[in-house]
């Protein structure tokens, strides 16, 4: 779950660097750690601060600064989308998928979020000495199967082996290229006040499936990851001439982080309604036990779409029965995400600093 994606969501958090002269009781500010923490890869403010302070200034260019799931650029008469992602999930196999399905779907989905038709992937394998050959074969077969289902081909690759103890069995990097077959600019900058926000299903299943498998937590029924390719759904919206303004898949950091990223980037407020966000009973139960908020739990087959209000019903019907409208883009200048709670009051939805940590009691 703790992957770092260099071209993904490069948005400044709301981190304020204030030059503290306080005689503080907590002398190491959380964003100024001298070493990398797991939280730097969790999709929260710490990761954004890292990208904002190091990656963005160092690699500075307009494509990167578009702050989207992939870079979109013209080549001749065509527009291409290009993205990359690394996969370091533990355990390698979990209910609903494995590291191979993630490695294909994750990159396919980043291309889909650019409004592209995914075409080709690369696959880089970092294998740890001692990895069972059978495990590798299962992962490769599942990548082959998933690529076939997603309509992409894996056309180039690389394999390295590291010493025993210097990897976690297998790490996979995939990069992807897709072609854009429309004239829309699908990006946070295209979001307009009044836009309606659609989601294609319930949230939190992937993160809780991984956590249950990793920690050996047993619930009444098994939580199955939502890992799925999203390109077909996105292309269906585009084929139906929906004027899609922005798309974002809800991976690390969950729905809440994606909404905060887009609100910040688009410089517009967002208001959502908690009641309209679907969470299965199993996921809710697991989150309640551990003190986690499903709004921040990872997904691998969910995305939000920002569309004009008069096309929302049509878009929802294309996305199917599981899709729902969860909110709207506000006209106010504030860039907060606010939410009407289940008891009818309003509050802020913020991005977390790092990972959600299970609480004591």
């Amino acid at each position, binding site marked *: 779950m703790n992957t770092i994606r260099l071209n993904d969501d490069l948005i400044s958090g709301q981190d304020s660097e204030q030059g503290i002269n306080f005689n503080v009781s907590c002398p190491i500010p959380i964003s100024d750690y001298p070493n990398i*923490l797991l939280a730097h890869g969790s999709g929260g403010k710490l990761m954004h601060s890292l990208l904002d302070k190091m990656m963005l200034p160092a690699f500075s260019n307009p494509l990167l600064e578009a702050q989207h799931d992939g870079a979109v650029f013209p080549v001749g008469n065509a527009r291409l989308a290009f993205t990359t992602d690394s996969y370091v999930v533990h355990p390698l196999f979990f209910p609903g998928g494995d590291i191979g399905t993630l490695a294909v779907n994750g990159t396919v989905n980043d291309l889909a979020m650019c409004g592209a038709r995914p075409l080709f992937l690369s696959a880089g394998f970092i294998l740890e000495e001692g990895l069972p050959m059978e495990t590798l074969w299962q992962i490769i077969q599942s990548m082959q199967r998933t690529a076939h289902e997603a309509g992409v081909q894996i056309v180039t690759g690389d394999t390295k082996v590291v010493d025993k103890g210097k990897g976690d069995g297998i790490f996979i990097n995939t990069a992807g290229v897709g072609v854009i077959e429309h004239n829309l600019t699908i990006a946070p900058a295209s979001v307009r006040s009044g836009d309606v926000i659609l989601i294609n299903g319930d949230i939190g299943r992937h993160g809780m499936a991984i956590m249950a498998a990793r920690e050996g937590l047993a619930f009444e029924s098994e939580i199955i990851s939502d890992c799925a390719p999203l390109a077909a759904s996105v292309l269906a919206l585009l084929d139906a001439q929906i004027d899609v303004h922005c798309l974002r898949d809800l991976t690390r950091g969950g729905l809440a982080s994606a909404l905060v990223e887009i609100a910040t980037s688009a410089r517009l407020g967002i208001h959502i309604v908690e009641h309209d966000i679907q969470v299965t009973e199993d996921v809710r139960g697991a989150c309640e036990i551990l003190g986690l908020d499903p709004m921040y739990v990872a997904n691998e087959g969910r995305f939000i779409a920002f569309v004009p209000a008069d096309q929302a019903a049509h878009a929802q019907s294309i996305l199917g029965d599981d899709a729902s409208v969860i909110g709207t883009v506000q006209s106010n200048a504030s860039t907060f995400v606010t939410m009407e709670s289940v008891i009818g009051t309003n509050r802020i939805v913020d991005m977390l600093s790092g990972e959600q940590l299970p609480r004591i009691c």
Partner: protein
Amino acid sequence: MKYINEYRDAKAARQFANAIAQITTKPWTLMEVCGGQTHAIVKYGVDELLPEDITLLHGPGCPVCVTPVELIDKAVEISSRPDVVFISFGDMMRVPGTNGDLLSAKAAGGDVRMVYSPLDAVKIAQENPNRQVVFFAVGFETTAPANAMAVFQAKQRGIHNFSILVSHVLVPPAIETILSAPGNRVQGILAAGHVCAVVGYTEYEPLAQKYHVPFVVTGFEPIDILQGVYMTIRQLEQGRAEVENQYARCVRREGNLPAQKLVNDIFTIVPRKWRGIGEIAHSGLGLREAYTEFDAEKRFGLTDYSVEESSDCMSGLVLQGMKKPFECPAFGTLCTPEHPLGATMVSNEGACAAYYRYRRPDAPEKAALSKKAEVRL
């Protein structure tokens, strides 16, 4: 979901809010003790539904917040030793001590692990007989039984490489400290339901009488809290100061007797320092003489740490209900979850972190802090 949906129902919330408004004739100030309740109040905006005349103050019941800096420093020190596996609940991992937090210790090479139960730590000790396995035994009466069970099992099984770094605190002495303070404004207490599920609520009965303050044992869902407020206000308006139980689906007056016996067998009452508040007599648990071999402080010779807390951070006043987070000039500017000046901002259940996460002064309309809380304080 059963026992969740019913207690997060908008219609029921409105009904309770109306009922509270109907019986309230004058201003009242209540305190919810537990950080979990604070979190629920701010997350669901429960206080937004209350009449202007009712003020909720946030109490000291966040175990992460009140764990003294010295203990964090000791945890970081122990976890940096090469022969140690240091084990903690998740939310202690990010609390800064003088020289960083447990996540930093882990990043620097320490074997720091997170578990959901202290019994998992005993299992890790059993599986790693050549390493010292230390569990960070933090929390109120709620976590004490499981931590006691871990020590009990380690002793039973002869697991000598297991120890605990104890920072247990007790709720009733902290409440008495607040109620007896000069300038106390708290007129009614919402007691923490899960604490009472373990220890019952007989200890509150003499406190209610002595300070003439009603106590209502209250759960953690929005409707629980609204009902708890209703029951407390009803007592105040009727001039009563008794202990009532809103959380009857979990709590009995005598509590969980086997759990209490186990805690009493393993632990004894000791004075304990609370971060932001200072030392409170009889407010903590320490290992009994018969179990001192499991005391990590003794095992690693870490008994004389002392850290001066910053006078710039007002988290102590927040923990005692004397200030609200918004009254701190550093709130949201110098002090944020990424740059916490005090424990109430770093812990998820700390009042400052809850306010920062769910409300801001500059947020649009209702998501901002209600005017009444600012004006009234």
